[in-house]
Every structure is written in C-alpha cells, then in structure tokens.
C-alpha cells in the first residue's frame, strides 16, 4: 500500500496477567478511508486501538502514523489522532461546552469558540452546551465523547464501538456524521459488533479474532469473495447419498438425508444460477422436493462463520 496513514507491523500485547490480547497484528490503513474492525468480544479491538493511541504499552512490534514512528514522535503524532473510547468515561459533572473546550486545550490548541460551536451543532449538542454531561442520555453522552475527540481536528479518528447502546434512528444519524467527517478528509477507524454498520459505511473491513487479523479486504471484494448462497432443499423422501447428477455442485446431505444443502456462489449471482441448475437436475433425475429455502449470506454470516472457526467456507473460496 502506498503511504499508509497508519502502518502497524508485528504488534503484540501481553497483559501483565499473561493474557496475550494481540498476537502479531499487521495492518495498514489508507488515508481518507473508513476502516471497520470487526470482531467478537475479547478479540483485541480495544487493545489494538489503545496501543496506537497511547493507552496501552505494546509488548512488541512497531506503529507508524503519518509515516513517522509513534514510539519516537508520539508527541507530535498524538496531536493529530483522536479517540472515542468504548466506555462512556469522562468527568460527568462538567458541562458539555467546558468539557469539549477542555479537550481542545489538552491537545495543545488555542481556544476556538467558533469551532467548538460548529462541532456541537453538527452533533446536535448545541442546545445542551450548558448541561452537565451526567444529565444527558446515553446516546448524547456518546456524542459528547465524539465532540471531544473532534475538538482538536484529528486527521485520524478512532471510534471504538461508536453506536453501542444507540437506537436505530440515532445510529443512522451517527453514520451520517461519520460519513461527513470522512468527506472533510478525516481517516476513520471504527470497531463494531453491528455488521450492518460495517456494511453500510466501511470502505474496507478487517476481521479480528483472538488477537489476530484473519482477513482484510475491500468491503465489496470481501462480500464477493466470501459471499455465499445457501440453499436448503427439503426432499420428499430421504436420500442415502448425494445423487450423481449433482456431483459438480457444492452440495451435501443434512438432517439424515432429508435435506440437501447447497453452499456456494460468489456473492454476485452465481449462487442463484447454481441453485436453479440444481433443482432442474433434481427434477430430471426424478427426485421430488417439497420446499426450497434460499438466502444470501450477509457479512454477519461470514463473520459468524469465521469467528466460530468454520473456516471451511473461507477455505473453499480460496
């Protein structure tokens, strides 16, 4: 990748208790993209973000941001990076305005009321500027944390589960705001449990599990490469073996031969064509069936497959 904005190589983190949260992570982030880091609880997402932002001291590996070594030039580099943490943790007794202004000062920038006003307005927090943070709803609190992270105009912004605990409407709202940030040139790395979130807004998706990056790809390419059509054909009578005529297709008998399961395709229509061919072949062979259930795997299915260790699916695609 040409001039990545963030270049992580061989990053490891073993916590004092002996738990290895990151087991050699390599990851390059492109300037201007939205990158979604997807992984189950305890995969190491927060640890990875923490290592870049200075919250966690890495055990090994290197991190370069904007082409410079984070370990050496942390002072200048951190000023260009923003972080919205997973937990709603900030001084809850502070009013919104002061809290956000404080963040700007902490990052070494002179006060700029106009900029703070613009940020608060863009996050619909302007009306609440004099309200203590503890008096806001959960979704509002999260937006305050986003405002704080934006207050020093970072070029690289980390959002650790930005929409956790946020209702659907607010979530769409937040997606919009994140897209707007990207349009203004901010590179965004977010973690999420919501597949639809990655699907909706990410340019690229990385899947992390047990401290290892399993795969990184363009969202569309990943869908295409892994996108699978799954069809369950209920047979009128159980079969003992997969019929000869279907030998060319990725099918298997399940539920004691009462159902024929097709898994295949390329996420771009091939699967549906295959299923049509399979049913025609069945008819020609005189095998009767009573129902067909067909669906496309979403990113979620891929994700679930991967994290449950059913990599057979991914392996088959290679």
């Amino acid at each position: 990748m040409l001039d990545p904005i963030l270049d992580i190589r061989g990053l490891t983190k073993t916590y004092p208790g002996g738990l290895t949260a990151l087991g050699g992570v390599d990851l390059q982030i492109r300037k201007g993209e939205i990158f979604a880091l997807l992984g189950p609880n305890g995969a190491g997402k927060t640890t990875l973000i923490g290592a870049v932002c200075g919250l966690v001291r890495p055990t090994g590996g290197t991190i370069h941001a904007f082409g410079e070594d984070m370990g050496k030039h942390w002072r200048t580099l951190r000023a260009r990076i923003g972080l919205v943490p997973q937990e709603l943790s900030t001084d809850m007794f502070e009013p919104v305005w002061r809290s956000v202004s404080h963040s700007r000062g902490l990052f070494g920038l002179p006060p700029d009321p106009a900029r703070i006003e613009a940020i608060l307005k863009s996050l619909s927090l302007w009306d609440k500027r004099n309200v203590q943070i503890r008096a806001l709803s959960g979704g509002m609190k999260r937006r305050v944390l986003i405002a704080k992270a934006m207050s020093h105009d970072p070029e690289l912004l980390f959002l650790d589960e930005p929409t956790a605990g946020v209702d659907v409407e607010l979530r769409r709202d937040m997606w919009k705001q994140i897209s707007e940030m990207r349009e203004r040139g901010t590179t965004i790395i977010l973690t999420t449990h919501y597949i639809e979130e990655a699907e909706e807004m990410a340019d690229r998706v990385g899947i992390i599990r047990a401290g290892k990056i399993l795969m990184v790809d363009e969202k569309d390419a990943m869908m295409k490469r892994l996108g699978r059509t799954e069809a369950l054909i209920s047979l009128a009578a159980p079969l003992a073996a997969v019929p000869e005529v279907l030998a060319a297709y990725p099918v298997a008998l399940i539920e004691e031969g009462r159902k024929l399961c097709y898994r295949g395709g390329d996420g771009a229509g091939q699967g549906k064509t295959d299923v049509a061919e399979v049913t025609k072949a069945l008819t020609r062979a005189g095998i009767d069936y009573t129902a067909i259930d067909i669906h496309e795997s979403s990113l979620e299915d891929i994700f679930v497959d991967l994290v449950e260790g059913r990599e057979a699916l991914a392996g088959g695609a290679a």
Partner: protein
Amino acid sequence: MSLFNARSAWTIYKQELMRAFRTAMQSILAPVLTTSLYFVVFGAAIGGRMQGGMDGVNYGAFIVPGLLLLTLLGESTSNASFGIYMPRFTGAIYELLSAPVGVAETLVGFVGAAATKSLILAAIILTTATFFVDYTIIHPVYALGFIILVSASFSLFGFILGIWADSFEKLSVVPMLILMPLTFLGGTFYSIQMLPEPWRTVAMANPVVYLVNGLRWTFYGSSDVSIGVSLGLTLAFLAACVALIAYIFRTGWRLRN
C-alpha cells in the same frame, strides 16, 4: 518537536482548580472548621494551663506552624491523590493518555493545581489563626518558601499515591495510617525536647519532625533541629518523588496497562 506543551499543562491546571471550587465546601470550609476547633481545644483549653508557653512562645502561637503543617500535609496528599485517582477510576484518564502530554505537563497540571490549593488553604488557615491567637512570622520569606516546598512535595507524594492505589481504601489508608500518626507524633503540638529519652531519639527518626521544626523556625527563629537539615531533607524528599514519577511514566506502570 516541542518538549513541553504549555497549553496542555495550563488546561489540566485550570481544570483541576475548577474541580476544587466545585467542591469548595469540602476543600475549604472543612479545614477552616477543623483548624478552629484545634485552636479552641489546644490553644484555649490546654494552652491556658501551660504557664510560660513553649520555648518562650505562647502555647497558642506555638502550635500555629504545627497546625498549618498538619493541614498542608493532609490536604496536599489527598488533593493530589484524588486528582489523578478519580480519572483512573472512572476511565476518563483515556483522554490524558491519548493527548500529546508527557510527564512534565501532567505534573505541572495536577501537582501544580494541588499545591496551589494548599497555598490558598495555608493563607486561609493563617488568617483564621489570627482570630484565636497572636503570632508573628520572623522570617516571612523563608516561611513562604517552606510552605511552597512542603505543598509541592506532598502534592507529588499524593500524585504517586493516586497512581499506586487501586482502590479507595488504599487511597485513604496511607494518609490515615501513616501520615496522620507521624504528624501527631512529629511535634505538632509539643516540642520534641519535652520528650524523655529514649523517645526523644526515636522521634528524630520521624521525618515530620523536621518539617514541623523547619516551619516553626521560620515563625519563631528557634526550633529543635536546624533549618538547614529541615530544608535539605524536604528538598531530598521532593527530588525522590520527582524521580519516582519520571520512572512511573517511563514504564507506564499502573497507567498504560
């Protein structure tokens, strides 16, 4: 690349002071009340029976430096320790850790604010004392210097405590079980010379003795130990705290795990 982010340090300092004013009742009124009570009990009740005072100084006046120190040690330690412990406890420290802020800015911000609070408190206590006793300060410049030095040292000490503690219990155990007894045994309300041997010698192992007597010297020009020794020890304590904090930041201990 700059080595010190003045604006960041100032931001932390301001924030910390603001936090103190938010809890003004607790951080200012409480010490004033406590000090007044000490004056009433020790100064008026006991002092009235102390014929001739201590070392030629009226007993009520004699305890002013000790009382001042009692408050300074306690408040500097607890203010600074809470200042850094609370964000650690709530998780709000993430912002500080992710900011372009190093050990210098953090110290100037947190410890500076805690020490400033102590200085304000010292002024209030000395003012309160004038309502109860007549006292003089023979070496006002030394007194101010010594008060600043003690405030800074124990704010640093409190800062370390706040990083070390991983529970509220630990946070209060050191001031309660170590600092308080040492202060009371350190000649706050009496002269070490009044103690019989071997307790007089044992008392000399108590570092607070040197602090109390250093401050007492700046008030009345006489004390149980020489001002040079007092100043030297206080400075050494300050230097040790700074070195320890620098080490903590380099290793990330309790902060970056």
